[in-house]
């Protein structure tokens, strides 16, 4: 605003990265507060009686029990007071207690989030690798048979119902071929690992348990396959477009004209040039994966965030619904932050400021 600003503005003390991180942290905190307001408001607008849902038919009809529950949970307070009560508890790490599991929501999320994270991270890695390969191939062979095949494959990946695909894969690989294990994170005969990260494969490794590790890895395979097939459809199309744009740029033409090898052109010029848009869409896809695994989790009896969110909604478990809302909001913020940071790493022209 100030006309003197360009000349008088001082650079923040410390490195530009630290300044950037501080600014982003401030913005993120504000956004998180916004998320809590929206989540709280939406949750409280849901029709239905959380007291009856929590106490069950018998206890909810006892006026004294009902009143005690309402008082204890501050439900007799105005909405604004309830929000500040909620925020006060939240700042102390208290997300409330789930009426479905009877446990603190934070404890539930501590098991559900890593379960989803485990399949989502693997799925994004697999689908990114696949879609870079397919997308680049299709762009190089634009209009040829390979491009058409990739186009059909990605179209199928995008349009196939996830639930159906999951059931089909489960039935085929487990029941028909017998090469995949049954549902769940581990076999019934296996003991879950002592919790360190909540990621079973990692925890088994950290505990030096190869049997558990291989079992958990085998159980990961099919959910990851299904999720990555769906995500690959989206990413491949995007990467193809991004690569096509870079291919038509002058510096790639120049590199090719110099006679550099095909592989070198692809890795050093084309993919580096397309890295930023790929990064952006990958961030969005990863967020969608984390918050949208409910169907895959349902088919593979995977006790993750999607299943937890579904049960919370079906049972009017308000604390749990708000907890899930916060986690999803937080995930998107973190992903955006990471994407922004990687922008700077991948392209020096992107100024942190």
């Amino acid at each position, binding site marked *: 605003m100030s006309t003197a600003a360009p000349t008088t503005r001082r650079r923040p003390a410390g490195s530009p990265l630290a300044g950037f991180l501080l600014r982003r942290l401030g913005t993120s905190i504000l956004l998180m507060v916004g998320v809590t307001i929206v989540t709280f408001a939406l949750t409280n607008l*849901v*029709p*239905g*009686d959380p007291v*009856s*849902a929590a*106490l*069950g038919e*018998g*206890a909810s009809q*006892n006026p*004294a*029990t009902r009143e*005690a*529950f309402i008082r204890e949970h501050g439900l007799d307070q105005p909405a604004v007071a309830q929000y500040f009560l909620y925020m006060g508890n939240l700042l102390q790490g208290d997300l409330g207690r789930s009426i*479905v*599991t*009877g*446990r603190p929501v934070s404890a*539930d999320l501590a*098991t559900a989030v890593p379960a989803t994270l485990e399949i989502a991270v693997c799925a994004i890695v697999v689908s990114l690798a696949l879609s870079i390969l397919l997308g680049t191939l299709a762009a190089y062979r634009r209009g040829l048979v390979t491009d058409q095949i990739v186009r059909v494959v990605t179209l199928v990946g995008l349009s196939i119902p996830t639930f159906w695909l999951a*059931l089909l894969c*489960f*039935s085929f690989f*487990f*029941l028909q071929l*017998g090469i995949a*294990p*049954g*549902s*769940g*994170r581990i*076999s*019934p*005969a*296996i*003991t*879950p690992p002592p919790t360190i990260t909540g990621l079973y494969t990692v925890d*088994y*490794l*950290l*505990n*030096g*348990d*190869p*049997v*558990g*590790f*291989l079992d958990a890895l085998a159980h990961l395979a099919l959910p990851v396959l299904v999720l990555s097939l769906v995500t690959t459809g989206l990413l491949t199309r995007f990467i193809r477009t991004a690569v096509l744009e870079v291919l038509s740029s002058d510096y790639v033409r120049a590199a090719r004209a110099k006679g550099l090898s095909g592989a070198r052109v692809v*890795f*050093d010029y084309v993919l*580096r040039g397309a890295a930023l848009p790929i990064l952006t869409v990958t961030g969005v896809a990863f967020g969608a994966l984390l918050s949208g695994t409910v169907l895959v989790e*349902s*088919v593979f*009896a995977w*006790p993750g965030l999607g*299943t937890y969110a579904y049960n919370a*909604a*079906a*049972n009017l478990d308000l604390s749990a619904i708000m907890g899930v809302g916060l986690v999803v909001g937080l995930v998107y913020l973190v992903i955006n932050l990471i994407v922004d940071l990687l922008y700077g790493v991948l392209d020096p022209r992107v100024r942190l400021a």
Partner: protein
Amino acid sequence: MRASARFRTRSAAAVAFAAATALVLAGCSGGNSATKDDEGAAAGSLVIDTAFSIETADPGHTYDPTGNMLAKALYETLVDFEGSDVSTPVPGLATWTENDAATEFTFTLEDGRVFSDGSPITADDVVYSLTRVQGMAEAKPNFLLNGITIEAVDEQTVRFTTETPLLQLPAILANPALGIVNAGVAQANGGSGDADDSAQSFLDGESAGSGPFVLDSLDLTSQIVLTKNEKYNGDEESAYDRVVIRNVTESATQLINLQGGDSMVALDLNGDQVEGLGDGFTVDSVPSGQTIFLLLNQSADIAGELANVKIAEAIRYGLDYDALLELAGAGATQATGVIPTGFEGALEDGVAQDLERAKAALAESGYAGQKLTLQFPNDYPVGGVEFTPLAERIQDQLAGIGLDVELAPAPFATELDAYVNGTEGFGLWFWGPDYADSANFLPFAPGLKVGLRAGWAADANPEIAGLAATAASATDPETRTADFTAFAEAMQADGPFVPLIVPGRNIATADTVAGAVYNSVWDVDIAEITPAG
């Protein structure tokens, strides 16, 4: 270019390091205890797949199907049922006698029985366990023992005194929520037995009962593991050392797991799925204790000029029940009245379609083409019966007698309020027993819980209200059955409800196991499941 070469080198090194770390860690000594320690035991594990409906392993708070099944495995009750027969209570931890007025019941504990820590089960444990449920106002099963005084007579004897005749008390005491807990252990872990009781968190990690199993681990989202109670000295000893109950919400996944040999028992397959199971599997298909019914509100505020039972009668005789049953699959039957078959006093035959009678009743009801809005939960199948196609078929059939029905589906959690608060004019709902006795169906009477939900006050039909009161306070087991039948008949003639379907319950098992039968109180008695042959 140089930078990218460095990047590639670093990446390759990182990947190599990660791979090497993984290999070293994987190669370390150790291994999964369950697999490594005892291959035989693991192979002998019993795996049950079910869609979890459970909040706790504390019997005092248990009030859902999976919770009941778990409590039945961990805790014993004073009274028991055999197999799927819930009409005749049999001794569990105790035998009993009652006075002629059915207001005083004396239970004598079986000699020599012990908890899983080896300590003897005494009358004090019984009194503690049951008064604890009475004292915890927020506990869902709290209402089961309302108005009952429980006292120890001596170390082996407990006396129950009721305010009114309560012939159903033995059946109530078979509810797994009334399992007997080791008082000393529970009290040492916060079991104060009042509103401040905090033993639930302890009992969610460790059981303190005398059942055939002890709790190994409880994860309310994924699986429950039980192991054999080594101190168990009752007559239901388990044939399995370890039982894994898994939360598999999708019935299609349960089916694939069962067919693929990953589980031995699947509790939630629908009729179509069990019919296609083929060889190598056994299915126990029986009617459940649930009844799906239509409700016609009798309050003028809600139903206006159609607030009379004639509209219910018209619908009752206007429906084609065989066609509705097609939607329910194996094991389902037509509801013969508000008391389902298998319970004392249930009617033998249901209503048969009679279009003339339906049209006559409709004319009498004051119906003049008004639109009736049918409200129902659309995300809560009961016994495999989806409510949306059922409501659509009802709509179609009622059009045949000239009734204009509009469908208003809503999520269960939302629609429940309207149903419970009695604001539904025309509703499609279900009712299941809290314990195995026909007294559970008396709430359909005018002035009682479900009756009031239909806007049916006590003075709306004093005759039926009287029949319900007579059945509730019966003291003679011989005449009691007739009392319930009279109630059921009167409801079928003049009630505002249209009982439709008793959904089936299908317990599917691999041929490698036997003994998995459905019980309407605890789904399946896990200890009764044995290896086949």
